[in-house]
């Protein structure tokens, strides 16, 4: 795995290097292939526009149909400064346009991100349309209305001894290519930063990303602003390239074209939009001019796009990657399987690793860590929990049992603040946490592993754990977009340690989708563990496991439990009684009784209410 990481570092410089080489070579090679300089410049502008969109859609999973609003805003602000306001510096105007688009993007994001999924898409469509109308009517005095803003000057840069003029065509190319290069370098850094990792986690599973302690809303807004800034810069470049800022930059079609180009080239690849734009412009030219299809070319394009979404959903680059993986990764897959067989044989190593587990706060400081007072939860007329009083001390291992429908999971959801109690109070570490968000509670050190796996499915086991560890090491929101992921002190140690703890160190680079069920279950526990919580809740950690997996997992939980405070719900009573020191029995939403496993086993009330059926059957 270390070799792989080194490989990544090498590849990292390779991507930037290859991009620079390709950009430098383009004006010498492309003319021979019949490419017009204006087309090449246009592809670069679309590519720049797409960098931000790909971070927003491909990495964060937010499909916006409103990017035209930001593209137009950046373009119009830059063009207005250069044509109407008599601003002399093209570069400064571009920067101001970019900043303006980012600010507008922030405001638009505040509205659009109030809702997720389908709502988000609909709201962005509406926003794009509003901007189009605003540009055309109320603001036409500044934007030129349907005439646009003509006369945008070409950039020239004074170097002290000479002035560089980037007029048009291949002369303008170096200017745009240089900015694109900066754009791609920045985008690559963002994608490789901790923020980029969290973007991907949000794409895969926003609920879990919030539950492990990341402020999902703030990160989404951040992705939206990044997308807006790139859109604004691209819009400004459009005006500079054409010498004219066209009003149709604001049209919904612009957003649509961006979406299609990105999907054609490959979503989540950064270079996809650039490639997609090249394909689009080539097809347009080829179908219109060579095949004489006229306006029908868009129909052909529409059909190609539909087929692509149906059969090659990851676009050209994604398709090539899959093909490459199919041909060259056969060998490494076999190696992974070998590695997969190994971990079952190493429980001992795990146990020693766990012994050194540093729990966040002095775990053995006495006194209660969690207190629930008169907790009630009602769903309409249904009483899920009633008058629960519950206290867990530091360092304690507590089990909760109860028949199906006893309100165990609801109780857990209230403790982690996933659902608010109807009445009552929850104190954690002496602090009232009632009504706080899951994210904040996780940041305080209380987290849960879920009854049904909530993983980041397209990420590897190590990446999953990393996401959770990041929340602990960085807090719920931080904008270290330019920092390297592995430069965060303590991250690597925490991740490797957690992987060993849950026995996944043998195959850390396997995507979740390829893990066996038992492994996924352990990763689920690992996600909760990675944030090194001072109180860990486990909701049915043994659910759905085979008898052999159960035995292994009980060993695992024992080793994890050393020096920690945990509350475990499970139906497997033999395993649970072996694990915990005290047991709370819930029945019909109320606490029936509390005691040591032996007390519970011999308690008549429990036998009557909970094990009654068993006794009768035996008799």
């Amino acid at each position, binding site marked *: 795995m270390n070799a792989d990481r080194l490989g990544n570092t090498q590849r990292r410089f390779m991507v930037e290097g290859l991009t620079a080489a390709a950009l430098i070579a383009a004006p010498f090679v492309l003319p021979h292939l019949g490419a017009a300089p204006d087309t090449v410049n246009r592809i670069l502008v679309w590519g720049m526009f797409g960098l931000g969109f790909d971070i927003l*859609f491909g990495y964060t*999973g937010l*499909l916006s*149909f409103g990017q035209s609003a930001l593209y137009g805003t950046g373009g119009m602000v830059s063009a207005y400064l250069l044509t109407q306001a008599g601003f002399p510096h093209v570069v400064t105007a571009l920067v101001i346009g970019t900043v303006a688009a980012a600010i507008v993007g922030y405001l638009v994001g505040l*509205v659009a991100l*109030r*809702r*997720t*999924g*389908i*709502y988000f*898409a*609909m*709201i962005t*469509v*509406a*926003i794009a*349309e*509003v901007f189009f*109308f*605003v540009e*055309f*009517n*109320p603001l036409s005095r500044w934007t030129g209305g349907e005439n646009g803003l003509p006369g945008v000057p070409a950039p020239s840069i004074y170097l002290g001894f000479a002035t560089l003029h980037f007029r048009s065509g291949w002369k303008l190319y170096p200017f745009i290519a240089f900015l694109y290069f900066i754009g791609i370098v920045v985008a690559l850094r963002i994608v490789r930063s901790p923020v980029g990792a969290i973007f991907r986690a949000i794409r895969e599973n926003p609920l879990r990303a919030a539950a492990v302690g990341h402020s999902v809303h703030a990160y989404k807004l951040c992705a939206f602003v990044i997308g807006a800034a790139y859109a604004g810069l691209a819009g400004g470049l459009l005006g500079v390239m054409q010498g004219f800022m066209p009003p149709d930059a604001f049209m*919904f079609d612009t957003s*649509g074209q961006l*979406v*299609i180009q990105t*999907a054609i080239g490959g979503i989540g690849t950064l270079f996809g939009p650039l490639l997609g734009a090249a394909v689009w412009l080539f097809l347009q030219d080829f179908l219109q001019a060579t095949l004489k299809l006229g*306006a*029908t070319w*868009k*129909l052909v*394009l*529409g*059909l190609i*796009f*539909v087929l692509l*979404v*149906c059969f090659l*959903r990851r676009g050209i680059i994604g398709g090539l990657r899959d093909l490459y993986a199919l041909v060259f990764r056969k060998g490494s897959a076999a190696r992974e399987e070998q590695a997969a067989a190994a971990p079952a044989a190493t429980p001992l190593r795990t146990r020693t690793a766990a012994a050194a587990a540093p729990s966040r706060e002095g775990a053995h400081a006495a006194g209660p860590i969690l207190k629930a007072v008169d907790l009630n939860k009602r769903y309409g007329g249904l009483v899920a929990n009633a008058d629960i009083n519950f206290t867990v001390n530091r360092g304690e291992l507590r089990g909760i049992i109860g028949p199906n429908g006893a309100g165990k999971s609801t109780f857990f959801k209230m403790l982690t603040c996933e659902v608010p109690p109807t009445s009552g109070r929850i104190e954690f570490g002496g602090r009232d946490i009632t009504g706080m968000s899951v994210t904040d509670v996780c940041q305080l050190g209380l987290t849960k592993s879920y009854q049904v796996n909530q993983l980041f499915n397209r990420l590897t086991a190590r990446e999953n754990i990393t996401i959770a560890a990041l929340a602990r090491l960085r807090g719920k929101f931080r904008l270290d977009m330019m920092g390297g992921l592995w430069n965060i002190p303590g991250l690597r140690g925490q991740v490797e340690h957690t992987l060993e703890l849950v026995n996944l160190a043998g195959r850390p680079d396997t995507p979740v989708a390829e893990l066996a069920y038992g492994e996924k279950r352990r990763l689920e526990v690992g996600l909760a563990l990675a944030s090194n919580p001072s109180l860990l809740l486990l909701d049915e950690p043994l659910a759905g496991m085979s008898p052999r997996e159960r035995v292994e997992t009980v060993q695992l939980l024992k080793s994890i439990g050393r020096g920690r405070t945990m509350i475990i719900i499970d139906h497997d009573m033999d395993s649970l009684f072996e694990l915990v020191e005290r047991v709370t029995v819930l029945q019909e939403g109320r606490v029936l009784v509390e005691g040591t496993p032996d007390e519970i086993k011999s308690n008549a009330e429990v036998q009557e209410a909970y094990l009654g059926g068993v006794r009768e059957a035996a008799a």
Partner: protein
Amino acid sequence: MITWSNFVSQLFNGLALGALLALISSGLTIIYGTLGVLNLAHGAMFMLGGYAGYLAYDRTGSFVLAVIAGALFLLVVGIVMERVIIRYFYRRPPEDQLLVTFGLSICFVEIVRFFFSSLSKTVPPPKIFAGITNLGFMFYPTYRLAVVGVVALALIALFLILYKTRLGLIVRAGIEDSVMVDSLGINVDRVFMLVFGIGAMAAGFAGVVNAPVVSLAPDMGEAILVQTFVVVVIGGVGSFPGAVLGGLIAGEIISITSMINPGYAYVMLFAAMTLVLMVRPHGLLGVKGRE
């Protein structure tokens, strides 16, 4: 100058537009609520309905036949689209559904452009509804009054389907909890097909009925799609009453703002949507957890 009768006639225009938006949005919202697919081709379907009606009218000269043809054509388009493409997307991420329906909307628009060119087409209103009616306090185009009536009938028909039939019961249950409906042993497959067809038919029907009011153009569906989205956001996803209420609100906002300054119609519409999102994020009649 804003006069009293001008204002009232705009209120009526708003009602006509609102009723139309209500019908189109109902189609969109029951498709989304039941199937979980946001159909970005819904506006293009509205446009297709208009053109199908135009073609039928052109051949037969009968407006009634045009309406029937437009509605039935879209029922067929909807069912074919669901069988051939959409049903393979239920298990794929929502983004893919958006992308594929967006691609289909482009295809619909370009096919129409190919056969009918970009020049706009008109369908005259049927003879009995031609001219203007004296309402006592003002004169108003008869056909627009008829639109309100016809669309209201269509909404009632949709209401009856949703609330009085077995299919409607399944659809409403599916909107609340599709997993549960699936596990009750109901043939969801056929229901999905029918729902998509009916939703498309609602858009197509609205397209024909609206044809005499506007002139037809291949890209007319885009603006309607945007308005429909705002309606659904205001009313609440998956809510039939919400679509009707949202439609009427949006129709009146557009009409009344247009009277003062048409340039601000969308701004006001958007402001209303933002307000609803701030105060009631799930829409006026929406229920939490439906998206």
